[in-house]
């Protein structure tokens, strides 16, 4: 299944209130964006990594696998900062401050990503989505998101099985076959999704489904101590950044 999702459901911090984890995770992400990249983002990245691998208990291998994805984009994007267009040395030339800018962007992205991953790796959607109503998101939108979440897994599973069945009948051997397979895969996914919705409708009718998907939110309290600790941690990272900024630059 989806590794981050699976990890979140068995996370050590599963029982913590999402607000606890949001303060810490998104706080780190905000700092990554707002503090000067050097040494701020570097400190944020180190802190986030320490929390993720330490108290939050996220396995390093899983974390690395999740990080690889955005890294591809970042490296491509940052690489473009290395060159400049129409400078004095020709149409394309190396930019003087290119490496520095690219480095800064990479640092900032990594740090910001780790902050969000701290939240994502410890907070399953089942704890987050129903609570969004209290945060002011209209209930119908949350309901739709809930169904989207649940059905995405069913649909991904179907798509996986259909692809395998297509491969078994050599559906990916030639380019023409691959197109034929992909098109029917897309159409099948569509038909499946709406067939599922219709049957779910029948399945839920008996329990009083009227368009609203009411569910009980798991009991968890916002921990004052955890929040204070998080704020203190964020504060120290900020302070340390300003202390170190002078000597390091």
């Amino acid at each position, binding site marked *: 299944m*989806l*590794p*981050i999702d699976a990890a979140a459901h068995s996370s050590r911090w599963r029982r913590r209130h999402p607000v606890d984890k949001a303060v810490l995770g998104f706080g780190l992400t905000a700092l*990554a*964006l*707002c503090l000067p990249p050097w040494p701020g983002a570097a400190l944020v990245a180190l802190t986030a990594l320490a929390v993720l691998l330490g108290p939050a208990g996220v396995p390093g291998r899983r974390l690395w696998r999740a990080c690889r*994805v*955005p890294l*591809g*984009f970042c490296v*491509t994007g940052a690489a*473009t*900062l290395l*060159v*400049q*267009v*129409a*400078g*004095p040395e020709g149409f394309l030339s190396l*930019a003087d401050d290119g490496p520095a800018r690219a480095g800064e962007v990479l640092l*900032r*992205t990594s740090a*910001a*990503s780790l902050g*969000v991953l701290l*939240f*994502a790796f410890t907070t399953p*959607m089942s704890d*987050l989505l129903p609570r969004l109503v209290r945060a002011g998101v209209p209930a*119908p*939108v949350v*309901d*739709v*998101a*809930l*169904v*989207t979440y649940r*059905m*995405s897994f069913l649909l*991904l*599973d179907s*798509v*996986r099985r259909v*692809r*395998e069945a297509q491969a078994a009948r050599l*559906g990916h*051997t030639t380019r023409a076959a691959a*197109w*034929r397979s992909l*098109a*029917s895969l*897309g*159409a099948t*996914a569509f*038909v499946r*999704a*709406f067939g599922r*919705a219709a049957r779910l*409708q029948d399945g839920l009718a008996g329990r009083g489904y009227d*368009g609203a998907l009411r569910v009980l939110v798991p009991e968890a309290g916002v921990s004052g101590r955890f929040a204070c600790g998080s704020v203190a941690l964020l504060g120290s990272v900020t302070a340390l950044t300003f202390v170190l900024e002078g000597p390091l630059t």
Partner: protein
Amino acid sequence: MSPVSQETGQGASTIHEVLERVCPVMHIAEGFLPPAHAVAWGVASAPFIVHGVRSLTREVREHPESTLLLGASGAFTFVLSALKLPSVTGSCSHPTGTGLGAILFRPPMMAVLGTITLLFQALLLAHGGLTTLGANAFSMAIVGPWAGYALYRLLRRYGAPLMAAVFFGAFAADLSTYCVTSAQLALAFPDPVSGFWGALGKFGSIFALTQIPLAVSEGLLTVFVMRLLVQS
């Protein structure tokens, strides 16, 4: 894990592989944009998303059963964007799904469904990000669907055959998405010498030009899918 690999043209066997092993996803990554830009794109997207949320809420109030159908549409959008698209040139990418989504579900709905999809991609797959959600939503959930839908309607009005309109609609949705992404990056990272336009050239040649064959692919896929859907 050793599923029979994609590279030999055979089926993927875990969802993980279906999703991400094959090729990069062109969402702007977490923290890539400076704070001011992140906020500005969020503000720019907000009215469209609010408009979409209003029409979704109205739809659900009038037709309570549509909650599940909209959820199914969201799941379909999510899964479609996870498929691997064979390109005419041999490189590969995922379809944006915004053109097909806009034609099937209309742009205001896509603003919401697209944003939900982006949120899930950010939190479940680490594709894109929360700070860049506004920027990504602007390109993928707003400009793409509207551009694709507008062209589709225009072509239909002037008598173009259904499938031609579908092709150009999906093509335009895909390409406009990546043009906007390039522009967003160019605005955030202007070239030291030639400024915004130079940067647009750089990012455009990476994110938009390489996308032209992929946009053709997405157009073709959308036509094939639509043809099957119309048939059945």
